């Protein structure tokens, strides 16, 4: 279980606003973070990961405190063991695909898992490629695999599919679904594509101006006219 109760002052395009999130995530949840751009969705992921620090509040994961402004606790991003896939490609250009994956290994990780991931994500043919040789979809597939090498319990996806075409999205969604299930992950995925969220998540938080304004199942929250054709 993850409990989040944080406050962060954010600069938006239309002035400052407060990100104020007080939510609980159950283990195994796949949560869609939905809303317009510039409302604090990415900031929420960055605060959870430790890339940014809240102004105040508390983040607790299982029984471990990641952040507590009252007791001045802030576990650095390196020790939070999170999987994170960014919107844009952040594979290391100086390494091949395999080197990128191996870079994520720490001493306690098993090579076996790496082989398994290569298998599940169907990366065998790409291993010796340089990252600039990959297509957008292949890059995000490698990014997803790299994010999972260290066996994180929490996976954060920041619009990882937004730059891909429709067909590629469909395939990547399958990979994400498979990864979430196989590794019993708790996943948060930012997206403003209702269709994508409907396919993947079991809960949706709709965020506006830094606050969760509605939450529920995808059917309850996401725009209904979307389902006319289903």
């Amino acid at each position: 279980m993850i409990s989040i109760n944080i406050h962060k002052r954010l600069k938006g395009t239309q002035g400052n606003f407060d990100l104020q999130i007080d939510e609980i995530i159950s283990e195994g949840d796949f949560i869609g973070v939905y809303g317009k751009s510039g409302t604090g969705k990415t900031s929420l992921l960055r605060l959870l990961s430790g890339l940014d620090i809240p102004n105040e509040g508390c983040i607790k994961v299982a029984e471990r405190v990641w952040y507590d402004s009252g007791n001045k606790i802030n576990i650095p991003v390196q020790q939070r063991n999170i999987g994170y896939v960014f919107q844009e490609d952040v594979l290391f250009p100086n390494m091949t695909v395999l080197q990128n994956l191996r870079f994520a290994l720490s001493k306690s990780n098993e090579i076996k898992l790496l082989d398994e991931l290569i298998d599940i994500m169907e990366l065998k043919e790409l291993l010796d490629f340089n990252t600039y040789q990959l297509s957008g979809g292949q890059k995000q597939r490698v990014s997803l695999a790299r994010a999972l090498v260290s066996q994180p319990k929490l996976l954060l996806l920041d619009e990882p599919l937004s730059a891909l075409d429709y067909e590629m999205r469909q395939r990547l969604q399958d990979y994400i679904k498979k990864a979430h299930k196989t590794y019993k992950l708790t996943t948060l995925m930012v997206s403003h594509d209702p269709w994508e969220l409907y396919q993947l998540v079991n809960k949706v938080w709709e965020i506006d101006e830094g606050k969760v304004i509605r939450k529920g199942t995808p059917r309850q929250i996401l725009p209904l006219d979307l389902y006319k054709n289903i």
Partner: protein
Amino acid sequence: MLFLNSFNWMPLLLTGKLALITTLILVIIGVPLAYKIAFSKSRFKPVFEALIGMPLVLPPTVIGFYFLLLFSPAYGFGKYLKNIFDIQLVFSFSGLVIASLLYSLPFMVQPIQNGLQSLPKNLHEASYILGKSKWQTLWYVLLPNSKKAILTGMVLTFAHTIGEFGVVLMVGGSIPNKTQVASSIIYEHVEALNYEAAHKYSAILLLISFVILVAVYSLSKNNMSFLRRNN
């Protein structure tokens, strides 16, 4: 061949030695310094940048003058070195190296700093998320992707040190076989109206500098294409 037999190569060798040593030491100092400044969030960052950039705007003679005072065995620091360690930096090759390090510092630091700053911000964040420390991130991710910037810093430092004149003359005093580098012997030959000798050194310096730059730029061109494909 007569030309070569009677020719004193020492100033050119000293110039090369000085440029090489300065470049090697500066790359070791310059990389961590550039990293510190590139990612500094301190409000004093402009002050540090200005300090490092000072040699760009100061007349070399000003730097030379203060080094002369600093190294002089008659005062403070130089006196201390002389009394305790029996080291005299003024009019010595070591003194030249130290002065060159400061004089060429911005030529090493600024290109590397720019290179590091131009990398996508997410690149080092991605490395942190994978559990890597700042040091590991710098070594395995940031520096390998800044090869061109580092190479540029090294070329500029090397070339700039070859071209030093004011500082080396003030600090080194142009002592034959010790601190008399090519640029200072040219000046002396010109002053003595010995144009032929001055011309020989000048032409050789011109040629050497050109060859070095062509060699390194063609090398960096390969590196550049490597980086272009990567980014």
